[in-house]
């Protein structure tokens, strides 16, 4: 019971198949964590509505990914979605919320405000310029507010991150944060087609592959992103 915080004894690895055992343990543990991201009901402003559209609305429905069990208590939540602006008065509370969550905990910063302060960056005496000044963030989802599809893209990125992230041997070690921007030039139809294909295929989504494919396509054409925001993925 409880999270694995200690390194597993090194004598497991020397025994034949020991590392295989550990690797498959990793896979199972990470699989369960990735597929059961219970979000905290927490939203500060506009992005919360789009987040609710993504999690709550029947059209998008995060319950397909097992992430609809929104917990009002931070103790029971795994995923803190920072949806909206964080201001100086809220900052200590956000930190408390994060600290109240039990490990493993993941943080998604959705929207410009949570990433950089967004439209409230300049001349504001109270807006924190990015939630990562307060707590560590795993995935950034840009947009003002990000569409429900972008939120999903972020969720899938996080799932992928978790699946290949922590290992039993090195607990607590995470991959560096990623920006989960939709590739430039992507259209709604493409996303829908990808979602449909993915729904058909299987339970695991190779987000990176899909993104690379789209990137390749978009390199052939022109980069038509309106805000010139080019995405980077690790």
């Amino acid at each position, binding site marked *: 019971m409880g999270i694995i915080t200690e390194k597993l004894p090194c004598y497991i690895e020397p025994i034949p198949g020991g590392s295989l055992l550990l690797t498959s343990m990793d896979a199972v543990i990470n699989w369960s964590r990735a597929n059961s991201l219970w979000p*905290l*009901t*927490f*939203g*500060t*402003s*506009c992005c*919360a*509505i*789009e987040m*609710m*559209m993504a999690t*709550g*609305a*029947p*059209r998008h429905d995060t319950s397909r990914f097992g992430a609809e069990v929104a917990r*009002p208590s*931070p103790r029971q939540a795994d995923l803190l979605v920072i949806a*909206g*602006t964080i*201001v100086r*008065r*809220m900052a200590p*509370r956000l930190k408390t*919320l994060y600290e109240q969550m039990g490990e493993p905990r993941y943080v998604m910063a959705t929207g410009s405000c949570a990433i950089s302060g967004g*439209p*409230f960056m*300049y*001349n*504001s*005496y*109270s*807006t924190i310029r990015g939630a990562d000044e307060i707590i560590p963030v795993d995935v950034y989802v840009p947009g*003002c*507010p990000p*569409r429900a599809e972008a939120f999903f893209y972020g969720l899938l990125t996080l799932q992928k991150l978790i699946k290949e992230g922590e290992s039993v041997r090195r607990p607590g070690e995470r991959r560096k944060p990623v920006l989960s921007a939709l590739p430039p030039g992507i259209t709604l139809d493409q996303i829908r087609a990808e979602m449909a294909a993915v729904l058909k295929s299987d339970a695991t989504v190779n987000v990176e592959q899909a993104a690379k494919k789209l990137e390749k396509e978009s390199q052939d054409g022109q980069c038509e992103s309106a805000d010139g925001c080019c995405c980077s993925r690790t």
Partner: protein
Amino acid sequence: MSVHITTLDDRVRLRQDDSSPLSTQEYFVNMGPQHPSTHGVLRLVLKLDGETVREVIPVLGYIHRGIEKMGEHQSYRQFVHLSDRLDYLSALINNWAVSMTIEKAANIELNDRIQVIRTLMAELQRIQSHQLWWGVFGMDLGAFTPFLYGFRDREIIADIFEETVGARLTMNYIQPGGLMYDIHPGFVKRVKAFLQYFKPKLAEYETLLSGNVILQERLRGVGRMDGQTALSIGATGPVLRASGVPLDLRKSEAYGSYGKVAFDVVIGKNGDCWDRYWVRLEEMRQSMKIVEQLIDNIPEGKHMVMKPAVKIKLPEGCYYNQVETARGILGVYIVSDGKESPYRIHLRTPNFNNLWAITETAANWRLGDLVAILSSLDVVVPDIDR
């Protein structure tokens, strides 16, 4: 002179005056800033006596972003996009309020097409906002399904907006001097399809929630506020109208195209939670009526009467203008010193005033009622804090 500055700590200090072993003690509880039913980061300090609420002390500022200060450093056009982020559920109407104030100050005449499209958009936004409220209201009372039904129907209006505006939530569509873009060719068809779709759904809303005996028990007579208190607290919109005061700027000022359409101002009788619930549901019907009347007669014309590149400078002076958003009266007060950015810009937001109704209405009700009352006031916290 008796100016005494207090702090929150002073307010929440308990007096231990009774020493009888049988006396009960009142206690303070923090509701929020992270609480599922405060709709964001509102914090209410509750003085409770068992389950009974004795006093509500709202503590604000958890999403105070200093929009008014920022406005002093931005041009008038730039400020429109900040107004989206106040009450993001009536973003278009907020845009309209700011634009209208600027237009009136700068004497910009608009053509009918712009006015009609603005009115249409505002009414669609109002329906969308009430849909969300209805869902969240159900959830606050413990019924989860309305939440999803509300969102399901909200998506369809979001689609209509997206087609024309390009955004789903923060629109920045109504600009000083017109509209950002002309409407999408499929707009009229889409809106008609939506009206067709939504009418039976509204009946479904009624069957799912309104007729439920538990809901009636929870709402009738709860959180009653008479018209005089509502006026004194400065409540507007459905909250005021539920208390029986027929103040609707769409009727009394008849801005936009509201003068040309027939619709009723919905008022309640008792000013309790049920009336606030019912007024909002009925308002959705009225909004649909307005949309129905306008959708077939959108006049021809340009969607922008001034070039978007022109920098706006207002003549020196102060300008105040109000618009009826989904939650009440949004007033924009601009003081101009003749420069490109306002000298002072102040927003009289509907939720700020509506929120304080909780201090008047929630006392001596139960904790569960407090949630119902708060939800029936339909506050959007960033709009309070600005």
